C-alpha cells in the first residue's frame, strides 16, 4: 500500500511515521517551503499534560494524551518527564481549588515543596499542584527529529507542494492540513493562539509552570538555551496574522507575575497561529472517499497526535473504526 500524507505539522508527521514504521510506502507533501513555516505546531507549547487538560477538556483528551506520552519518549530523546507545576497568586486561591477539583493525578504542594522543585520560585507561591507524570518537549526540535526519522526510513517530505485536487490513483491520502481543509470539513473553525519566546539567563525552570488566573491563565515552558515559551491565548478567530497589544500585555504580565525577573527578559520571538477545531474541540478522523482527514486537534496537537496517528494507521491499513474519534455520520455533527 502507498499513502500520501498531506501536511507536515505534528499530525502529518506522526501519521507518516506511524505508517512508515509499519512498512507502508509513505510520502509527505507540505505546501510551505520548509518545515514548520505554515504549521501552527511550530508555535505550540509542547506540553504533554493530559491530567491538567482535564480542567476544561473532555476526558477523551486525557486518555489520548496519556497514550501519546510513551510514543514521544520512544521516538524523541528530548521528551522530558519532569511533571507540571500549577500555581496561583494568593488572591486567586479559588482558581487553584477549582483546578484541583476538576483534574486528577496530582499532589498538592506547600511553599517549601515548590521551592524544592523549582528553587527559583522559592517564596513566591504558598500552594501549588504537582502533576508528576506529565512531560514537555520543544516542538520545533521534535518536528525536526520526526522529519529526520522519516528520512531514515526513506520517506520523502516534498516541500512547496499543494494538496493534489484528486487523490493520485492507487494511493490512499491522509490529510492533516488543519484549517486549510475547511473547504472539505465545513464544520471546522479557527481558534487563534499567540505566544512569546523570551530569553532569560538568570532564571531556570525544570518543568512547565501554569499560572492560574480568573481571566488570563498562562503557562511558561522552559526550553534549552535560556528560552521560555509563554502562551497561549485562545481567541475565536480564523486569522492569525498578528498578535494584539492586549494579548502581548497579558502574556508578559503573567510571566512577570510568575517571576519579576521576566521583566528583564529579551523578547526573542512573537508567534501566532490558528488551530483548527470542531465545535466540541475534540479531534476527528473522518473519511471522504480515498482520503482520511485527521483534524480538529485544537490546542492539543503534540499532546494527542501520536494516539491519533496510531488510530489513523489502523483505519488506513485495517479499516478499523474508532467511535471515540470517528463520527458514524459526519452530517450529524455538522452545526446548522
Amino acid at each position, binding site marked *: 500500500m502507498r499513502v500520501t500524507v498531506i501536511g507536515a505539522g505534528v499530525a502529518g508527521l506522526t501519521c507518516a511515521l506511524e505508517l512508515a514504521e509499519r512498512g507502508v510506502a509513505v510520502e509527505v507533501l507540505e505546501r510551505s517551503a520548509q518545515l514548520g513555516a505554515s504549521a501552527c505546531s511550530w508555535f505550540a507549547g509542547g506540553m504533554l499534560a493530559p491530567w491538567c487538560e482535564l480542567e*476544561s*477538556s*473532555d476526558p477523551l483528551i486525557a486518555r489520548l494524551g496519556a497514550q501519546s506520552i510513551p510514543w514521544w519518549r520512544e521516538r524523541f530523546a528530548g521528551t522530558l518527564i519532569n511533571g507540571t507545576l500549577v500555581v496561583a497568586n494568593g488572591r486567586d486561591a479559588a482558581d487553584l481549588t*477549582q483546578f484541583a*477539583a*476538576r483534574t486528577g493525578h496530582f499532589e498538592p504542594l506547600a511553599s517549601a515543596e515548590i521551592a524544592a522543585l523549582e528553587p527559583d520560585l522559592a517564596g513566591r507561591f504558598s500552594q501549588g499542584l504537582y502533576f508528576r507524570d506529565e512531560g514537555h518537549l520543544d516542538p520545533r526540535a521534535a518536528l525536526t527529529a520526526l522529519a529526520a526519522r522519516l528520512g531514515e526510513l526513506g520517506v520523502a517530505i516534498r516541500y512547496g507542494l499543494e494538496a493534489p485536487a484528486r487523490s493520485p490513483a492507487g494511493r490512499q491520502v491522509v490529510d492533516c492540513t488543519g484549517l486549510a481543509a475547511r473547504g472539505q470539513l465545513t464544520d*471546522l*473553525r*479557527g481558534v*487563534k493562539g499567540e505566544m512569546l519566546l523570551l530569553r532569560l539567563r538568570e532564571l531556570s525552570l525544570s518543568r512547565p509552570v501554569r499560572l492560574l488566573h*480568573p*481571566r488570563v491563565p498562562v503557562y511558561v515552558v522552559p526550553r534549552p538555551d535560556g528560552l521560555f515559551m509563554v502562551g497561549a491565548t485562545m*481567541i*475565536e*478567530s*480564523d*486569522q492569525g496574522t498578528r498578535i*494584539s497589544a*492586549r494579548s502581548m500585555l497579558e502574556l508578559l504580565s503573567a510571566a512577570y507575575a510568575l517571576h519579576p525577573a521576566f521583566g528583564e527578559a529579551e523578547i526573542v520571538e512573537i508567534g501566532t497561529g490558528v488551530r483548527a*477545531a*470542531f*465545535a*466540541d*474541540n*475534540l479531534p476527528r478522523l473522518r473519511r471522504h472517499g480515498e482520503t482520511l482527514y485527521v483534524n480538529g486537534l485544537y490546542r492539543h496537537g503534540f499532546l494527542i497526535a501520536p494516539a491519533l496517528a496510531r488510530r489513523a494507521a489502523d483505519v488506513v491499513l485495517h479499516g478499523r473504526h474508532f467511535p471515540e474519534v470517528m463520527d458514524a455520520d459526519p452530517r450529524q455533527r455538522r*452545526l*446548522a
Partner: protein
Amino acid sequence: MLELYGTSLRSRLLLGSARYPSPAVLTAAVRAARAEVVTVALRRESGGERAGQGFWSIIRGLGVRVLPNTAGCHSVKEAVSTAHMAREVFGTPWIKLEVIGEDDTLQPDVFGLTEAARILCADGFEVFPYTTEDLVVAERLLAAGCRVLMPWGAPIGSGRGLNNLFGLTALRAHFPAVPLIIDAGIGVPSHAARALELGFDAVLINTAIAQAGDPAQMAAAFAQAVEAGRAARLAGPIEPRDLAAPSTPVIGTAFRG
C-alpha cells in the same frame, strides 16, 4: 412575559457566551437554559470584524437573539465604535454597553457609560447599560434614553451574588416600571432565585455556567431557579418577622401549660 425594547421574551435567563470549554458545550447550555438571549463579546472573541466567522456562525446557529456587548472597552470612543461594529456584524440595534473603569474588578466607569449611552441612544441603538446600583447613575442612563438597566450583583466573575442588597432593593423600588436585569456576580442558582424574588426582571449569567463542572446541567439549574424566583415574586412572599408566628392556634391545646 419580559419585554425589552418591545421584544417579548418568555425566558428571564440571559446567557453570556464567553469562556465555555467549547462551542458545543455553549450550545448545550443555551438549550438547557432555554435561553432566548445570548450576549457576545465582539472584541474579546475575535479581535476584528470578520475574523471569527466560524464562531459567529455557531452563535447565529443557536437561533437566539444576540445581544452584542462592548466588553473590554475602557473609553466612550471605543465603546461607541465597538457598538457600531456589532450592529453591522449582527444586524441588531441592541447593544449591551460596558465601559470598564477598573481592570481588577471590571467595575463600570459610570461617567463614560452615561456619555456613551447618550451617544448611542441618539444614534438609534437600544442600549442595555451595565451599571452599578447607584440611583443617580440610573436616572442619568434613563434620561440618556436607556429603557433597560443592567445593575451588577457583584463584580464580574466573582460569584458573590447580590452584594449590596440594600442598594439593589432601593433601585428596584425607585424604578418599578423599568426592566432591571442583574448582570454580574451571580455564582449559584440560589442567587438568581433571590434576584427574581426581589422583583428583578431577569438575570444574565456567564461565568457561573461556563466555568461550572457541567455547564449544561448548571444552565438547567439556573433555569429552574429563575422560574422559581419569578413565581415566588408573583405569588407574594410573606414578610419576615422577628418572632415565631404559629400557623395554628395554640392556646388551650394539650401541650400548653
